[in-house]
């Protein structure tokens, strides 16, 4: 029998903890992956996916059991150069994996480590840059690349080692839809060229694209089968901290009213294609109420003709915002949508006075940011900003102190404990069990919650959130969205930025769409989403529900022009079916 590409026998591994008991991360894994397979590795945060992946190219070595790559035992150091060139790995955070001062040298880094002759290295670098489409950026320093380009650069660096297997460890988590799409296409292409592709992801649609799905739960393999099989038991998935892909979820809900919809629809395009025409002609206006008049937001937050240039008057100056408009209503959720580099973060930072308008006007509640006498500290307390990466926001050792930071600065003493408790409960963290935890031992989702709670403790009237759901597993994501909805019900005004429409469509009543620093659309959510073609022209996708609704309308169902929530769509379909026949 020939050796499989990857063979794992009874693998056990514990993360060493200084002075404490080791935490078991992998418990008796048995696995065999052949040449040319396309495998998705999924599981909740902390299920051991990354730990397992790092055993595959000898970054971690088993405590017990054996890992063999092409028959080579990873515990023998003399095989490491071969193993590492056979199995390449692309990591999650784009900028941390690029070593050299310019892109092309970074791609050469691996082959140089293998001690190849210069001409061979040059050839491999050319090939890798070609495949990843980065030829024109070869002389750029890494910090001037976009996140998507950095991930492609990291992949190029791996490909230059001519691997037989590439592991993508949540490579798409930090990317916008366009960057993600590009990387997914590369994954498919590598698979078609005969490489083994292993994808670790929180995006269920990436798992659906694979041939084989392995589900990890608490260090053990819970499921190992085809995507069709794995995704046929939604309840089990939910228990494992996972979820169906969006198309699958929507299909299940639609099947309640459209029982003829085929089972196991997992891809958006399959779902849209499978939608049926109405069983009988439906009279327009028969079932649905007339389109409601859409009210513009009342302008609690008003941004008009805003312009901002970074590093003005230097050779590196670049214009981040130009003629931007945003109007958001009090007590509402406002969505801010756009791809990476469209200016979302820059705009959010104007809303709490971290940046002041260079051009145009900004007003937030009672504060006029153009007035030089405005008390900026008061503005920042009024409108709290939660950044995307919690690493930059947590600076105290203990969770309790972290959340108490802002109220303490304000001079709160007696009520401090209550404030902290209130803030933690708002985001769903248990006060007693979390207040004395060390912040750096928390999981990604928990760190986000602490960051959010530490702002809520300031009792702001407005919360500004930069990409609140990026990089979270499906369960943490829906928990986060639920606590945001909760905050809105408490009367807060929320402004959320995201590069997914899906994420915030359910919550937001008004939206601003940014494209390259300009406002593309701004207004009530229904109005914005009804411009499907304009959105698609700019590389943005309307939510799947909206697209499904549009398709059903085309097929002859009587459905209003723009639907944002699954519940509304089902309600309309039901009314259609119950309406007296024409």
């Amino acid at each position, binding site marked *: 029998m020939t050796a499989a590409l990857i063979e794992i026998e009874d693998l056990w591994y514990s993360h060493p903890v200084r002075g404490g008991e080791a935490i078991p991360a992998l418990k008796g894994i048995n696995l065999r992956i052949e040449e040319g397979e396309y495998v998705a590795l999924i599981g909740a945060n902390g299920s051991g996916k990354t730990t397992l992946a790092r055993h595959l190219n000898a970054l971690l070595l088993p405590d017990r059991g054996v890992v063999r790559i092409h028959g080579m035992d990873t515990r023998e150091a003399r095989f490491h150069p071969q193993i590492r060139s056979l199995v390449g790995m692309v990591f999650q955070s784009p900028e941390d994996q690029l070593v050299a*001062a310019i892109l092309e040298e970074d791609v050469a880094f691996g082959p140089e480590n293998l001690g190849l002759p210069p001409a061979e290295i040059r050839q491999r670098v050319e090939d890798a840059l070609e495949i990843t489409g980065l030829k024109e950026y070869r002389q750029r320093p890494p910090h001037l690349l976009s996140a998507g380009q950095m991930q492609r650069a990291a992949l190029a660096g791996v490909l230059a080692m001519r691997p037989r297997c590439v592991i993508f460890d949540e490579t798409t988590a930090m990317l916008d839809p366009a960057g993600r799409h590009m990387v997914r296409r590369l994954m498919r292409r590598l698979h078609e060229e005969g490489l083994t592709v292993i994808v670790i992801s929180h995006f269920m649609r990436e798992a659906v694209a694979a041939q084989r799905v392995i589900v990890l739960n608490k260090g053990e393999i819970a499921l190992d089968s085809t995507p069709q099989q794995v995704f046929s038991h939604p309840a089990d998935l939910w228990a494992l901290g996972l979820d169906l892909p969006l198309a699958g979820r929507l299909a299940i809900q639609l099947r309640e009213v459209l029982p003829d919809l085929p089972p196991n629809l997992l891809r958006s395009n399959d779902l849209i294609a499978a939608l049926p025409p109405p069983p009988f002609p439906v009279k327009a206006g028969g079932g649905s109420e007339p389109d409601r008049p859409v009210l513009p937001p009342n302008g609690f937050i008003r941004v008009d003709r805003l312009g901002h240039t970074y590093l003005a008057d230097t050779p590196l100056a670049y214009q981040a915002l130009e003629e931007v408009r945003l109007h958001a209503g009090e007590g509402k959720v406002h969505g801010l949508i756009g791809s990476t580099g469209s200016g979302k973060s820059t705009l959010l930072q104007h809303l709490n006075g971290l940046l002041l308008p260079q051009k145009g006007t900004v007003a937030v509640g009672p504060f006029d940011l153009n007035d030089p006498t405005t008390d900026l500290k008061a503005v920042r307390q009024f409108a709290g900003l939660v950044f995307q990466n919690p690493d930059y926001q947590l600076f105290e050792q203990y969770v309790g102190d972290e959340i108490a930071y802002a109220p303490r600065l304000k001079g709160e003493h007696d009520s401090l404990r209550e404030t902290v408790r209130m803030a933690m409960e708002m985001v769903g963290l248990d006060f007693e069990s979390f207040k004395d935890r060390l912040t750096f031992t928390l999981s990604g989702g928990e760190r986000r919650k602490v960051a959010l709670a530490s702002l809520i403790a*300031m009792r702001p009237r407005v919360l500004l959130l930069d990409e609140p759901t990026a990089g979270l597993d499906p369960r943490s994501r829906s928990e986060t969205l639920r606590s945001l909805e909760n905050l809105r019900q408490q009367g807060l005004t929320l402004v959320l930025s995201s590069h997914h429409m899906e994420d915030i469509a359910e919550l937001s009543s008004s939206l601003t769409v940014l494209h390259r620093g300009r406002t593309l659309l701004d207004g009530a959510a229904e109005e914005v989403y009804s411009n499907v073609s304009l959105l698609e022209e700019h590389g943005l996708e309307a939510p799947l529900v909206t697209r499904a609704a549009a398709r059903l309308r085309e097929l002859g169902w009587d459905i209003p022009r723009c639907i944002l929530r699954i519940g509304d769509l089902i309600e309309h379909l039901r009314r259609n079916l119950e309406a007296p026949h024409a």
Partner: protein
Amino acid sequence: MHNFEFLRMVNIGQYLPLNSLLHRLDARARIILYLVILMAATFTAQPAGLFLALLIVLVLLRIGRIPLNFALRGLLPPLPFLLILAVLQVFVSIRPPSALPLFEFGILKIYASGLVSAGMLLLRFCVLILTLSLSSFTLSTSEMIHGLESLLSPFSRLGLPTHDLVMVLQVTIRFIPFLAMAAERIAKAQASRGAEWGVRKGNIFQRVRQVIPLIVPLFLTSLRRAETMALAMDARAYGSTPQRTSMYTMQFQFKDAVAIIFGAVSATAILILGI
């Protein structure tokens, strides 16, 4: 308001890709050329030597097609400090015991030798700063790294880990823009929670105090990043073969030899004039 633009303060590695004769020289030749001029300008003892050095640097800037006013602008930020140093130099310089003061204001006596040494100090720093800017404008970080690696390679035969040292330098350079950006983000996160960052007031002491809470998260994030980067380097087989190679092959040509000879001759002239 630029309070949060920390990247603005970082000026290292401002490379100008101008493709001049100087830019086309072998990186090693450029490194040696700049080094000998720097050394000569540091050690020459007379104004004549310094003037020659200034002339040579201006000529090199011209050959490198660097706009002169752009290069000279680099002298402005350190100028106040240099002036203070020069003023001190006027009073503390060593003079022959027989020298008579040129001017006398009460107890302050100004000697001709003091003025000369103050002028020399200013001139010397100008030459040094211009030479350093010249090397930054014409030598990209990657060229510098490969040049150094090649120049240091004889030492690796003596058992010095030159590859690793150069890698340390390279990673350090990679981290500079990151540190500036991370500091900026942390400051913003703290300001959002009521810290006194970027508010339109605050004296110098308050500003210094603000920096302290920045340091802990900056260290933590840097360490975490360093860890990931080390992992990524490991994953790409760093250190798994003793003989690392390089994609670049450097060719030492006639013009490079000329450049080094030019450097050696100018340095000697600067030093001889300075005796």
